């Protein structure tokens, strides 16, 4: 009996030691981070900021946000940013209601949302693109490595007007390749997503005649192969012989990636192409001087641009009642759009870094935050 109790106590003690050891290690890790040389140029403010800000919105930005927060904390160990990936719409709603200090959104704010947000902030609104990512059309087709597709073909494949890989219409733009007599299985997202929104937006603009649905974050066609999340789509395409889907280009390794017709040539997705597309985008005029809402030129004919691109925004007030909070938002967003921040997101989430031209355009807006 005694030994039993003794051993139990010993075990508790051991657990205690292990726990405190872990805490100690964690502590060490944190202090190491703070001791690291202050290399990252955090845009505007050089003085360390502290406190906590909360953001909510697009799940697209979630992985990149982890990289950004880690980067911010390198120079500002007492600063903390919480991000709730509750979805673009929810993020904007919470921001307008004043529940969060900034929002992430896969689509720009609508005019009435900007009006409401301005009233809540009692200041201008800052809305800048922070996360740009090319969306690849991925396929799994034995023996076909260099598939080329036109916007109209993509639309017809995904709305099931074309059902066989050896359809004459596909063969016509893939001269010299042997296309198998196999059924096409188009795979779409089963959950709501910014990827779907941008993909359907592209189809609705670049293939107007063949795609009659508007751009939307849930897939408009019922009864096709649907999978959860980017990983689900990639998994389904990998598993299905003759399957085709759309997903973040960074996740497309190991699958065929279709080249998309742009003008007279065919373009593969790339970070540069996505960044270039954003550079060529027209900026919306309403909303105020700090609102940079872009309409991506989906029908571009410049082969240096890749038209199926997702751009995600960060939305904040330009003036915060709490100056400390304003300084933190500014420092965070400055880091996010800085070359270091964009590179961190690129290596962690596979996004396309913003081009210098776009950065030059949006930096004044971020610097205006106080």
């Amino acid at each position: 009996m005694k030994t039993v109790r003794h051993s139990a106590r010993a075990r508790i003690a051991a657990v205690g030691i292990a726990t405190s050891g872990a805490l100690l290690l964690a502590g060490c890790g944190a202090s190491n981070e703070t001791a690291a040389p202050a290399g990252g140029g955090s845009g505007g403010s050089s003085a360390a900021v502290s406190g906590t800000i909360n953001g909510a919105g697009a799940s697209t930005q979630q992985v990149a946000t982890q990289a950004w927060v880690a980067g911010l904390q390198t120079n500002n160990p007492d600063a903390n940013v919480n991000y709730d990936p509750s979805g673009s719409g929810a993020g904007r709603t919470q921001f307008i209601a004043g529940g969060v200090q900034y929002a992430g959104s896969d689509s720009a704010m609508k005019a009435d949302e900007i009006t409401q947000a301005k009233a809540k902030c009692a200041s201008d609104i800052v809305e800048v693109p922070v996360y740009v990512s090319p969306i690849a059309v991925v396929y799994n087709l034995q023996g076909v490595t260099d598939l080329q597709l036109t916007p109209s073909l993509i639309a017809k494949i995904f709305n099931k007007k074309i059902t066989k890989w050896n359809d004459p219409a596909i063969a016509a733009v893939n001269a010299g390749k042997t296309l198998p007599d196999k059924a096409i299985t188009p795979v779409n997202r089963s959950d709501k997503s910014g990827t779907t929104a941008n993909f359907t937006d592209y189809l609705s603009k670049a293939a107007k005649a063949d795609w009659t649905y508007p751009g939307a974050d849930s897939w408009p066609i019922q009864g096709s192969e649907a999978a959860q999340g980017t990983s689900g789509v990639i998994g389904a395409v990998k598993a299905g012989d003759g399957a085709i889907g759309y997903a973040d280009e960074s996740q497309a390794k190991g699958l065929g990636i279709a080249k998309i017709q742009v003008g007279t040539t065919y373009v593969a997705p790339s970070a540069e192409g996505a960044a270039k597309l954003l550079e060529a985008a027209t900026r919306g005029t309403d909303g105020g001087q700090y609102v940079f809402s872009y309409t991506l030129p989906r029908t571009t004919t410049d082969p240096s641009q890749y038209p199926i691109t997702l751009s995600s925004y960060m939305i904040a007030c330009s003036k915060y009642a709490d100056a400390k909070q304003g300084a933190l938002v500014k420092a965070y967003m400055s880091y996010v759009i800085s070359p270091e921040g964009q590179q961190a997101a690129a290596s962690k989430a596979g996004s396309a870094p913003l081009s210098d031209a776009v950065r030059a355009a949006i930096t004044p807006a971020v610097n205006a935050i106080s």
Partner: protein
Amino acid sequence: MQQPGDRIFAASARGAGILILVVLAGVAAFLVIQAIPALVANPADLPGGKNIAVYVAPFVFGTVVSSAIALIIATPLAIAVALFITHYAPRRLAQGLGYLIDLLAAVPSIVFGLWGLAVLAPAMLGLSTWLNTYLGWIPLFAGPVSVTGRTMLVVGVTLAVMILPIITAVSREVFLQTPKLHEEAALALGATRWEMIRMSVLPFGRSGIISGAMLGLGRALGETMAVAIILSGSSIITFNLISSGNSSSIAANIALNFPDSTGVAVNTLIASGLVLFVITLLVNSLARYIINRRREFSGAN
């Protein structure tokens, strides 16, 4: 004359009983209150743009079909396993098997989901193709066969595996309680072992089997993650079990669409949750009713 201990125990037991009711009522109230905005909303504002019944119907259908497949597969199998453990297997083996099955019940559903997606789905491609080739005239197997295997049939089989341990465990417990005298009497009258089981064990255990099956059905109806990651589901009603287009289930639809929903779309999802709540309530009431009707000569009360 009551001791203080008696009174304390009685009160705390009563409190626990009331607490259950309060929690249940709280959940029901939450669902109803949150669902009302969707029920009274203008149909054009709802996801899909039609009225709430049209929105929920495919998911109700998918939920019922997947659970039905699971139950059809799992129940006979579970009875067979339970009979083997209680009446055929050597005692040592029976004990081990019993533990193993209880262990199976503790496997998290997401693990079953991943297994269904990565192993079962590709493995059942052959069967699906075979069904389509030879039984394609039955609407269930009309095809075209999904190339990924993420179909209603695979979901049904996965759910069957998930609910098998529950049904087996309950059936086994009931079979063990069959009065020894009945069994021995049957054997003494010259019955073979199978006849003895048919005459004494199965009638005695019938309500136990039913309650086990209903417990399993409850789990299958509410199963979320496994269905969400395996099934290629959308908002359609189809009897076709082996093609890419399948009716999604209520729980899976909520899990998939809740994260990016706002406003009345959230209320719509909660309204579909209310429907699921009502379905499970009905199923359980039905099970209770069946068990109560066969109260006499039964091991489950």
